């Protein structure tokens, strides 16, 4: 329908290559070794996580720094339910974590989403930090020592356990955001909230719905992740870095576009793994991420995805030229409330 929507295959060749791509992706454990299967598992997970952030940040225009809290809720829910004594089935734990995350989103979102975007960012961040602290201090979460889950050594099991939900997430996001009324509502809120209200859109409700949706996704993947890495503690599932990663991946890939987060996640996850391989830890990676974000904002605000569309490439070169020329002084161009 619209050229602004996701990249939908237009002709036979594109459909064919998409099909091949899907087949290749589905067969990963069969044509590569355990190491790379694990890498792709990570890519699948982060693609979905970045997508979840993108729902709020890219489509609704509200930056959330609290995604880690939802991820952590999912992780701890699955971990606790799979402890000896509870022995839940892994798959049954996932909806529980998802629902809990969604509920938290509604509780926190309802008062905070009525305010400016900056408050939302601050409040969600504070929420995530609070959860981190509580999980570290509280007893039932195992405190800073964490929790151990039943072991499952199958790499391919986890690959599909991450991949299928990731594909489903992608499909649902695409349908909801690019092919439904909800997508219009959310984008209207992002582009001009007062105008959205003036055409009858209940912006607060739309924002809460988007936030709840963006919380449910990490709620699910947190649970899968916990089972995958077998051992979790507050730092591994509730730290800032988790949210930061999602933010960067979505930004680099392209906000408000359906393929953006996937691209960003793939690229940055591989870079991340490379840093670990080369330096042993991720401190340098963090610095690199910060620099990348700053540069993207300055020179490629629509992300990598924008390089794939000729119209945008031209608009981009135009903008770059304008930017590099001496700026005009004193222009306010408020450009929307923060």
């Amino acid at each position: 329908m619209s050229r602004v929507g996701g990249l939908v295959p237009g002709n036979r060749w594109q459909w064919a290559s998409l099909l091949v791509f899907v087949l290749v992706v589905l067969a990963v454990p069969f044509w590569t070794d355990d190491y790379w299967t694990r890498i792709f598992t990570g890519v699948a997970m982060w693609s979905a996580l970045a997508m979840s952030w993108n729902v709020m940040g890219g489509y609704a225009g509200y930056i959330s720094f609290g995604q880690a809290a939802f991820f952590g809720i999912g992780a701890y829910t699955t971990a606790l339910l799979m402890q000896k004594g509870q022995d839940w089935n892994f798959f049954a734990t996932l909806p529980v974590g998802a629902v809990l995350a969604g509920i938290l989103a509604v509780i926190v979102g309802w008062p905070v989403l009525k305010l400016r975007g900056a408050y939302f960012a601050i409040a969600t961040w504070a929420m995530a930090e609070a959860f981190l602290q509580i999980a570290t201090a509280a007893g039932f979460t195992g405190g800073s020592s964490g929790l151990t889950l039943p072991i499952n050594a199958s790499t391919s099991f986890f690959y599909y356990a991450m991949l299928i939900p990731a594909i489903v997430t992608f499909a649902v996001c695409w349908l909801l955001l690019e092919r439904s009324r909800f997508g219009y509502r959310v984008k209207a809120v992002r582009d001009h909230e007062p105008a959205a209200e003036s055409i009858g859109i209940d912006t607060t409700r739309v924002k809460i719905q988007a936030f709840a949706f963006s919380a449910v996704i990490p709620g699910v993947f947190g649970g899968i992740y916990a089972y995958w890495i077998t051992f979790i503690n507050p730092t591994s599932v509730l730290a800032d870095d988790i949210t930061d990663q999602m933010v960067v991946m979505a930004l680099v890939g392209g906000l408000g576009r359906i393929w953006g987060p996937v691209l960003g996640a793939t690229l940055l996850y591989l870079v991340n793994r490379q840093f670990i391989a080369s330096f042993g830890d991720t401190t340098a990676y963090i610095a690199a991420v910060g620099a990348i974000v700053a540069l993207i904002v300055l020179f490629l605000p629509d992300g990598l995805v924008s390089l794939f569309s000729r119209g945008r490439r031209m608009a981009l070169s135009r903008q770059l030229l304008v930017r590099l020329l001496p700026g005009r002084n004193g222009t306010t161009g408020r450009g929307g409330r923060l």
Partner: protein
Amino acid sequence: MTVLEVSDLRRSFGGIHAVQGVSFSLDEQEILGIIGPNGSGKSTLFNLLTGLVRPGSGEVRLHGRDITGWKPHRIARAGMGRTFQIPALFVNMTVQENLFAAVVEGDWKSARQRTGQVLDLMTLGDLRNELASTLSGGQQRLLEFARVLMRDPQVILLDEVTAGVHPTLRQVILDAITRLRSEGRSFLVIEHDMELVRAVCERVIVMDAGQVVAQGSFDEIAADKSVVEAYLGVPAK
């Protein structure tokens, strides 16, 4: 028949009394002009009527219903539409998508058909797949007006809708207003262009410093000393 009734509307921001006791009524098929110097409270009045700002006190009735204090989206769904002083388009959407978005809380099934009609009326048909951000200033105002039309509101508030618009496009807007009026709609129009006000508005309200200083036909208020004072800030001779 009165479609909109405003009684003693007041709103202050800190020490600034933006709107002080404004009262007027709007009849069916009437085009009411609102004029006054900058800062006289006209846009604030619009924000109060459309629910973007809560009134400190006073009452607003739409088709007899008390809508004072209603949320903006509720008022919009009750049949009031508005444009903004600075065009409030969805800049990351195309022209067509802007119009689709307008009926997302309404008659979605007929969106496509309605969009075609409105685009034709506003002569924007060729631009339907262009991003709203690439439109010229005048085209943006047309698009905003078009978006308002999509919901088929009974009462339409226009905030300087022809400001900076090329004469040809201006005519499109004026023609649309007259045609819509004859179909039963009512307009509240903030304007600085006196020619337009004289040509189109049956009645005019003059605001200054948050208050209504004069009401009447254009000729009546043009002759009114307090109006001249309001604009020039000096006593009229």
